[in-house]
């Protein structure tokens, strides 16, 4: 682990940079803000990545601070003492047993997350130098990016649920601000509010979950709560129920009596569903693509949306002893994986395809965590960060090169103009579909992590874990669709004839006035519609992410899910003594190893046939508008259903409470009713009225006071 000052720099540095860039943008100018934020986050990124390598391979364990955590000898599985290091910064909330500090807590999970967050964020900062070069509000943009980075780091280094919630909502704020970055337009504003509010629905669950944790354990700090669960300690809830061993404790919640760990698990997961755009609460993520593309890469692909997965892994002891809550995680994850893949097949906006792909991949992570393979979930989170950020930034490069065109139907043949971007997108695609040869080390990052998930899911099926079988088959099917929509994207965008049938003025309307800034470097005339390759500051991040998308799986397989995993995670992830999924995944039947490869190739072949060799075919399907295609293209009508029920219902209720509740009933019977009565009386006695209401006020209060005083006087005198 890094020394304290380095950890402090990594976490707080981006926050400080954001503050300076935001508050003093007038004085330090756009370039100053860009250099400051990019430099800070970039350095934090380098430090964090070094820390990850040290931790995984460099004997970081010997340097690390060993907290005298309870050895889980009794439960067997983790023989390694848990390693974590906590720097307490400042007490935050200190009310009775409700104790929360501002702290930086570093363990294996947060080391992984820190590397992902600052690494991708640093590259996205750099990339934005090119992508946002024509934007007049760059200082604000970079300030928000760094603010996001800070909030996300606070989330993963929290040592209590409250700071986690701070980071959780902080990234939500940054996400809201960045989705709505182009605030003069309607769509980004709508999308920003939708994202924030949908996340708040999740936070409703998360907040209640945290309250339940506090009431049951009398603490909101991770260490005492998670230790109590691991040891099955007897806890005495502050209310609701009497003392009992935590794994057997039942508490009342609303109308039900439920096991405490189950209800806590479910409530926390509702929070995760919002943040990680899982089925039912996924509706905000595709709309979030209204934000600038670097934002989509950082927040809505690599980092923020994975916070839910991180949460579930962080509290792994809860889900280990809450089979029903874990089953909910599994089924929601599995359904999301498949659902989002179906929708992704029928989208035409290049960013929305990738957004649904993200949604789908998050589903994989969740069902892995749900069945108990937290390590595999974290592994996929890790590799996914590279190839999904790569895909988004590659898409951004295309959009930039195509002068803000995002509709794939108007693309085609771009490979010729943007060979490096094309190469990067190919690497990303091969990584996401998980292409690789079983039993060998040949494969890109996604191969290692996705296959680990599918293999553990099969092993879980054999152990009879709830919904594991559904998850496995949905995962296989989603892998087929993933391959299909990923290749469809490549073919529609980069291959075939150049389909620039758009009138030139449409491009112009989208372009900013100072568009030429970005394009002069290449000697392009921006009035001309030809795509062009992106500048070097955008290509460097693509290159580095490509390296990650190729090698991250190979390098870290052993540490995350292989034979070294127990030592690597060092107690940060807890599994029960009878959870051997990571060993059992080596012993699944032979066909399970080959099934992902088979469906991936199948998907590739279908896409190649329909979108490369026979380009009209895909369009014909879309135009014929079959029911299945309509269902997919319209995202299963989720938005329509929500608008017609929840949103319309709340609006109606608001209006009803206001017009009928307040005005007619309360005011009508109350003050207004009395007014009419008084008017009626006063018409007879109008002579006494002076017309100034405050005269009455004085008279009435004066009389009341005198009256009261007289009574006191007399009573007092008598007594």
């Amino acid at each position, binding site marked *: 682990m890094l020394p304290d000052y380095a950890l402090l720099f990594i976490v707080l540095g981006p926050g400080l940079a954001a503050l300076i860039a935001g508050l003093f943008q007038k004085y330090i100018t756009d370039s100053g803000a860009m250099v400051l934020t990019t430099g800070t986050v970039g350095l934090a990124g380098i430090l964090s990545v070094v820390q990850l390598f040290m931790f995984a391979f460099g004997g970081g364990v010997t340097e690390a601070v060993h907290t005298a955590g309870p050895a889980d000898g009794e439960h067997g599985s983790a023989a390694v003492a848990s390693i974590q290091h906590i720097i307490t910064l400042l007490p935050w909330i200190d009310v009775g047993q409700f104790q929360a500090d501002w702290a930086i807590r570093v363990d294996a999970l947060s080391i992984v997350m820190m590397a992902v967050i600052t690494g991708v964020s640093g590259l996205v900062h750099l990339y934005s130098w090119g992508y946002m070069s024509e934007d007049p509000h760059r200082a604000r943009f970079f300030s928000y990016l760094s603010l996001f980075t800070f909030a996300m780091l606070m989330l993963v280094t929290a040592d209590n649920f409250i700071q986690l919630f701070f980071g959780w909502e902080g990234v939500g704020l940054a996400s809201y601000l960045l989705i709505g970055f182009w605030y003069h337009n309607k769509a980004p504003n709508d999308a920003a509010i939708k994202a924030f509010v949908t996340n708040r629905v999740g936070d409703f669950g998360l907040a209640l979950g945290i309250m339940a944790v506090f009431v049951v354990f009398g603490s909101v700090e991770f260490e005492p709560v998670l230790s109590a669960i691991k040891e099955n300690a007897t806890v005495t809830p502050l209310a609701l129920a009497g003392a009992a061993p935590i794994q057997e404790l039942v508490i009342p919640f609303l109308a039900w009596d439920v096991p405490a760990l189950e209800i806590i698990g479910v409530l926390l997961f509702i929070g995760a569903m919002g943040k990680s755009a899982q089925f039912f609460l996924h509706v905000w993520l595709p709309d979030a693509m209204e934000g600038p593309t670097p934002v989509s890469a950082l927040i809505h692909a690599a980092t923020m949306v994975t916070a839910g997965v991180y949460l579930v892994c962080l509290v792994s002891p809860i889900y280990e002893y809450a089979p029903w809550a874990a089953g909910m995680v599994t089924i929601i994850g599995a359904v999301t994986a498949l659902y989002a893949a179906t929708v992704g097949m029928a989208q035409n906006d290049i960013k929305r395809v990738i957004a649904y792909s993200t949604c789908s991949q998050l589903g994989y992570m969740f069902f892995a965590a749900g069945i108990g393979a937290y390590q595999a979930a974290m592994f996929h989170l890790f590799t996914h960060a590279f190839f999904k950020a790569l895909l988004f930034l590659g898409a951004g490069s295309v959009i930039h090169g195509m002068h803000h065109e995002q509709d794939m139907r108007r693309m085609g043949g771009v490979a010729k103009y943007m060979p490096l971007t094309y190469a990067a997108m190919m690497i990303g695609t091969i990584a996401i579909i998980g292409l690789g040869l079983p039993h060998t080390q040949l494969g890109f990052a996604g191969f290692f992590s996705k296959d680990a998930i599918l293999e553990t899911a099969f092993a879980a099926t054999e152990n009879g874990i709830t919904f594991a079988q559904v998850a496995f088959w949905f995962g296989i099917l989603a892998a087929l669709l993933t391959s299909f929509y990923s290749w469809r994207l490549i073919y529609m965008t980069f291959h075939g004839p150049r389909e620039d049938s758009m009138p030139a003025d449409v491009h112009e309307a989208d372009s900013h006035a100072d568009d030429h800034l970005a394009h002069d470097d290449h000697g392009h005339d921006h009035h001309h519609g030809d795509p062009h390759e992106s500048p070097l500051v955008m290509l460097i991040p693509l290159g580095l992410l490509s390296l990650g998308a190729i090698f991250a799986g190979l390098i870290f397989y052993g540490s995350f899910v292989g034979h070294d995993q127990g030592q690597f995670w060092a107690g940060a992830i807890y599994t029960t003594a009878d959870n051997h999924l990571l060993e059992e995944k080596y012993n699944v039947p032979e066909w399970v190893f080959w099934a992902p490869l088979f469906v991936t190739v199948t998907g590739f072949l279908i896409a190649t046939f329909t979108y490369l060799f026979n380009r009209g075919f895909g369009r014909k399907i879309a135009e014929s508008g079959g029911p299945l295609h309509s269902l997919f293209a319209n995202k299963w009508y989720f938005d329509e259903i929500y608008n017609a029920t929840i949103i319309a219902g709340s609006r109606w209720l608001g209006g009803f409470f206001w017009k009928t509740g307040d005005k007619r009933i309360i005011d009508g019977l109350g003050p207004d009713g009395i007014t009419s009565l008084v008017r009626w009386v006063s018409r007879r006695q109008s002579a006494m009225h002076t017309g100034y209401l405050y005269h009455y*006020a004085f008279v009435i209060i004066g009389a009341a006071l005198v009256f009261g005083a007289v009574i006191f006087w007399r009573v007092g005198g008598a007594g």
Partner: protein
Amino acid sequence: MGNFPILSAVIFLPLAGAVLIMLVRAMTGSQENDVATGNKALTAGLIFSVATFLASLVMLASFDMDAEGYQLVEEVSWFANVQYKLGIDGMSLMLILLTTLLTPLSLIASFGSVKERLTEYTIAFLVLETFMIGVFCALDLVVFYVFFEAGLIPMFIIIGVWGGADRIYASYKFFLYTLLGSLFMLAAVVFMYLQAGTSDITQLETFAFAPEVQTWLWLAFFASFAVKLPMWPVHTWLPDAHVQAPTAGSVILAGVLLKMGGYGFLRFSLPMFPDASQFFQPMMFALSVIAIVYASLVAWRQTDMKKLIAYSSVAHMGFVTLGIFSFTEVGVQGAIFQMISHGLISGALFLIVGVVYDRMHTREIAAYGGLVHKMPVYAAIFMLFSMANVGLPGTSGFVGEILTMTGAFQASTWAAAGAALGVIFSAVYMLTLYRRTVFGQVTNPALEGIKDVSVKELITLVPLLIGTLLLGVVPNLVFDVTRESSLRALQMITGG
């Protein structure tokens, strides 16, 4: 500090200022309403209110956080068994500080904003400040009642004289509701005095009223505090009062006057009528949750900025009663904190509305849009307070909400879950308001020349901004002060 009556000094300093202004006016004989004279009066009033603020800081400095019970007590025989008795504990100290902070800020906001009868306006505010501080210092029931009711008058006048077009209706409604509550309370005060033979609050706290008597007394006090707070369904005076009140009036109304309701529950209902408080807990939870959900939904549908924030206040005060009646340390501490926090945030939001109202003379949301292009600093400050209002962690809004809900969770998961819905709805109405006024394109041509916040406006907003963030990050600044008083109130209700 020896025996210097610091509480009386703080209470009557503003009144002294008011008297001085009146005397000067009488001596110069100027009955004219020219702006120059008015501004001088306002400046004088500002000086007095700042002096009061500084004096209240002295109070804070001489306060012992670890001591139990009341401090800085002053006692003078008034009449009969009634004492002019003052004293403070942690929660009253925090509310006094809130009062003495908000009053000068409101006066600053009035420069250039209020144009008529500035001298009388200043006097009304100074008198009001005296009454408000008095309420939080009173340790005698009669003294409390006098201050509590007297505070009505200046606020009533502020709305009725310097208010908007419909000010008569609004002030009438305000008056009718509050008076109704007050009469019940007066009857209860008299009755308590007859029963206990004293109106000393410290003695009444230990006096055991019979349970059936408690119920009636509790209800009488409830009538008054529920209206003040306001709780559903006696909240409808608040939106009208806010809409008609001048900006500074709204700041004080939302910032301080509403808190008297919450303060009353903690100072009287819990310690003096513990059995009745326990008995009415379910009702209080129900009313709190209804207030949160109902008012939030109504706020969403408003077309007037001030009305929206007024309904938002109703919802946020719901968290206060929720926390108080959880009878837990977390809930009560959270409720007190929520009162302070709401004072800062809602005060700031009304100032924020005032900024554009002064320029455009309309509060219609539809008249705005795209302000961010013309007023970037304004947009940033507005964003920050919007986020504070939706309870974003890192702002003071979060701490109060999470603690009151956690407290409620211990008593009723229904109440906690219902209140948590407010977390969703607050985001809906606040972000919608922000988006309609600040984001988007400038469509109203009248907005073309609108100017960003002035230095004067920054002076009013920045202290609140600092307070909101500081208390969001270091809420212990408040908790350390209020801890003993919260524990004491709880001790009395749990019969310890």
